[in-house]
């Protein structure tokens, strides 16, 4: 198995568990991410049941959830908050950050750049195992007596700081913070490695402008992560101080549980600023890799070069930069100085410009292509659709004036679930369907894939389009029930429909899970370059690179950009990057 460069003995432990090989680490991230997705989506199925059918008797779940299901067979209202908190945390961080970026940055950076491995295989291994530990701690927090963290995934103090305020702010919150600290360590270890590898280990001829857009997006996402995650860590540290050592960074003037606390002078808004300094770029840390994957996949399967290559890179950069300076649009109505609101509104709406450039470039890439509706292409088209639908409603929410009305309603829920949740999940799925042959050497079953796509695509729209109407009617998010207000007594029908759609979509993912695990062993053997793509990862002799080092002989040299699809001077409709320029092409370029 091992090639000439790596002669150390391989046993099960260092091959599959403590592996420093980027492909194995990618698989570890992927499978951990998939497991987290099952848990995270399962939670949403449970709280959707509560929202759609509040009268439903859930006593049958009692063996699993114990006292979280009350005597009457209802979901406990505090546990409802725990569920939405953990759903958000799991989906944003564990599935869409670690599962998406962790998998594809690890798999593709060395393979597409023509490197034998990451700059530091050891750091890379640490990055996964920090994530694994963080997962274990977060998983453990689901089983503590008073429940896991319940203050919303944004964990605003004082609610998250005071166990008197909500049960989940006790041990559950401590474990949440501990787990996130480990998670941040994992992101930083990974990020440093990605950036170093991209800067230093490109093969001969792989200039920055010849890098596939996937690599560009991983690079920018890694830089964003390095800039912003440490701020979350500091926010979490200060919160730990407030919780455990009696400091008052975020706490002031609090009377709770019959007692006036000693804290004075702290500012809850400080936490919100620190949190969103990560929290907003985090949306893009999740979104950029998805967009990069979509760019690559759309180009390959349209058999056309990506339209406006430089504009795509430029808009990725602009989006990344702007994403760092718009955080306080989450706080328009927080009572902060209205002047700040003006500034952040201006900067926020500017993001629409690079985003629309990207959208139009995707459309122009499809124009006069020869589009193959293979599975990855379907998901990529779905991603573009979600990116448009969800992005557009951002024009409403980014406008401070309209945010007064729409803030924290279901309109926000619908907006970010489509643009961040659905679009990035589709980015993850696009990546899985496109690079599955590279990961496992086999193809996914097409028929099951088509079923999975249509259930997910229609299902997601059926869940979130109705929620826009619910939000316009003013329904607040994070409500356990809408029974206490005359204002919110409409839309029981729509809420039931959304729950059904969510359950069907959830069950649709079973098809995918079956396909994913079944094809690993029984799928059709993949040819070396199943999609007839140009990038270097498909130049290994078989679909699945067998060993450390990726290429058995020399690393291929790069002679062209990755998007020479349907080049008029070539008979084939694709020209891989390692093919030297033909004499005619040379003539033309001179």
């Amino acid at each position, binding site marked *: 198995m091992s090639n000439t460069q790596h002669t150390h003995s391989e046993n099960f432990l260092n091959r599959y568990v403590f592996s420093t090989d980027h492909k194995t680490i990618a698989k570890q991230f992927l499978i951990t991410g998939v497991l987290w997705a099952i848990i995270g989506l399962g939670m949403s199925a449970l709280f959707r049941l509560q929202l759609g059918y509040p009268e439903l008797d859930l006593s049958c779940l009692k063996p699993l959830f114990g006292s979280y299901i009350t005597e009457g067979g209802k979901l406990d*209202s*505090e546990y409802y*908050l725990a569920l939405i908190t953990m759903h958000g945390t799991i989906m944003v961080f564990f599935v869409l950050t670690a599962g998406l970026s962790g998998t594809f940055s690890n798999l593709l950076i060395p393979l597409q750049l023509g490197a034998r491995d990451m700059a530091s295989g050891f750091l890379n291994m640490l990055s996964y195992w920090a994530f694994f530990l963080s997962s274990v701690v977060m998983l453990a927090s689901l089983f503590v007596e008073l429940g896991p963290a319940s203050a919303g995934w944004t964990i605003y103090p*004082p609610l998250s700081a005071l166990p008197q*305020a*909500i049960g989940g702010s006790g041990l559950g919150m401590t474990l949440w913070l501990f787990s996130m600290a480990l998670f941040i360590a994992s992101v930083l270890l990974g990020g440093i490695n990605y950036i170093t590898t991209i800067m230093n280990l490109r093969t001969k001829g792989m200039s920055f402008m010849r890098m596939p857009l996937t690599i560009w997006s991983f690079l920018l996402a890694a830089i964003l992560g390095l800039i912003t995650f440490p701020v979350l860590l500091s926010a979490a540290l200060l919160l730990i101080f407030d919780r455990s050592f009696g400091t008052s960074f975020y706490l002031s003037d*609090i*009377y*709770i549980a*019959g007692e006036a606390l000693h804290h004075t002078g*702290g*500012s*809850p808004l400080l936490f919100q600023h620190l949190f969103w300094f990560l929290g907003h770029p985090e949306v893009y840390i999740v979104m950029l890799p998805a967009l990069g994957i979509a760019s690559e996949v759309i180009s390959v399967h349209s058999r*056309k*070069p990506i*339209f*406006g290559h430089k504009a795509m890179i430029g808009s990725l950069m602009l989006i990344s930069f702007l994403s760092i300076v718009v955080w306080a649009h989450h706080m328009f*109505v*927080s*009572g902060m100085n209205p002047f700040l609101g*003006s500034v952040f*509104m*201006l900067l926020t709406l500017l993001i629409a*410009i690079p985003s629309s450039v990207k*959208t139009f470039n*995707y*459309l122009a890439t499809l*124009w*006069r*292509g*020869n*589009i*193959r*509706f*293979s*599975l990855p292409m379907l998901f990529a*088209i779905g991603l573009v*659709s979600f990116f*448009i639908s969800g992005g557009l409603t951002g*024009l*409403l929410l980014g*406008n401070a*004036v*309209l945010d*007064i*009305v729409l803030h924290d*309603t279901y309109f926000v829920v619908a907006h970010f679930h489509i643009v961040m949740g659905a679009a990035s999940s589709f980015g993850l799925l696009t990546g899985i369907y496109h690079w599955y042959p590279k990961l496992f050497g086999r193809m996914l079953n*097409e028929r*099951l894939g088509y079923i999975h796509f249509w259930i997910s695509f229609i299902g997601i729209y059926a869940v979130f*389009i109705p929620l826009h*109407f619910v939000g*316009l*009617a003013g329904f607040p998010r*994070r409500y*356990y029930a809408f029974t206490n*207000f*005359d*204002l919110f007594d409409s839309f029981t029908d729509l809420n039931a429909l959304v729950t059904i759609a969510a359950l069907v979509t959830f069950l649709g993912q079973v098809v995918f899970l079956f396909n994913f695990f079944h094809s690993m062993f029984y799928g*059709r053997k993949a040819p070396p370059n199943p999609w007839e793509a140009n990038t270097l990862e498909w130049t290994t002799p078989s679909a699945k690179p067998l060993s450390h080092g990726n290429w058995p002989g020399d690393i291929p040299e790069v002679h062209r950009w990755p998007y020479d699809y349907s*080049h008029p001077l070539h008979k084939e409709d694709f020209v891989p990057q390692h093919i030297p320029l033909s004499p005619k092409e040379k003539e033309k370029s001179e």
Partner: protein
Amino acid sequence: MTSLLLLIASLIVFAIAAYLFKIGNLLDTLSQKPTEGKDPKTNHQQAVLFLILTVVGFVLFFSYAYQAAEKYILPQAAVHLSSISSLFWITMTLILVVFVLTHVVLFFFAYKYRYRPGRKAYFHHDNHKLEILWTLVPAVVLSVLIFKGLSYWQEITAPAPENAEVVELSAYQFAWASRYPGKDGKLGRADFKLIDSENRTGVDFRRDENAQDDFMPRVMHLPKGKPVKIRIRALDVIHSFYAPHFGAQTYAIPGMPTVFWFTPSKTTNEMREELKDPDFNYEIACNKICGRGHFSMRYILVVDEPEEYEEWYTQQSPWIQKHPEYLSPKSREEPLSQKSNNL
């Protein structure tokens, strides 16, 4: 019993699905159908499905949006909501136009340029004029939205007018309390250290002159046509003052009082007539996750004609008159001796 039947039924469904899957796979192997997106038949099917979905999706969406308009467009009861809703509908129209156009283009291209064997795509990847066009057009449209937004934002968040009615609204787990300044027009000082089960918002009734005539009604009243300034406090965790009919929303933050002001434009009675609902009431809700009872923090707000409001205002008796025992030294300063008295 039913769950057992359900279990058996789902097992059967699963078994059938598994068999169909196996048969399908066998057939695929036998027919040697081209895969990886190169089967013209599948490509055609998928492209047509996208077209159907676009048409059906838009028909469903717009017909529902039209039918249910009454359900999701809230009746408005504050002056500044007119500028909010004009900006909302301008933006919404723009969004819908772009939403429809881009989706039609996306799915039409996907259909028109679907794979056909032997055809080659058009090698074309740069057009500076187009790039500039679709950078500038969004930029111009956005600058209109930004400009309008900024000017409305400044109006709405400007300091409240001098003559505004002042009301203090305090949020705590899981209820609201409102406090009016009384005849002197000045709210008494409040401090969280003075909070107890009786004096729930910690007003300094013992020392502050201004607090003596403050009153705390069970239901909040506001006059129509006059600016009102809500001083928002939180006593334990963050809450949010949220009154959808009035286009009002601001966090309530412990240690940092916030303010929102607006001018009610319809009385409760007028709204009852308009909606033909005699039981209608304006409601205030909490809109920031605050704990177990977050979903139940309801408070009723009544908007009166100015004369009715004056009358109601003068009828209210100060809190301290209603709770004379709060000032008696026996119960306050010497809680221990009171305990021994009871014994």
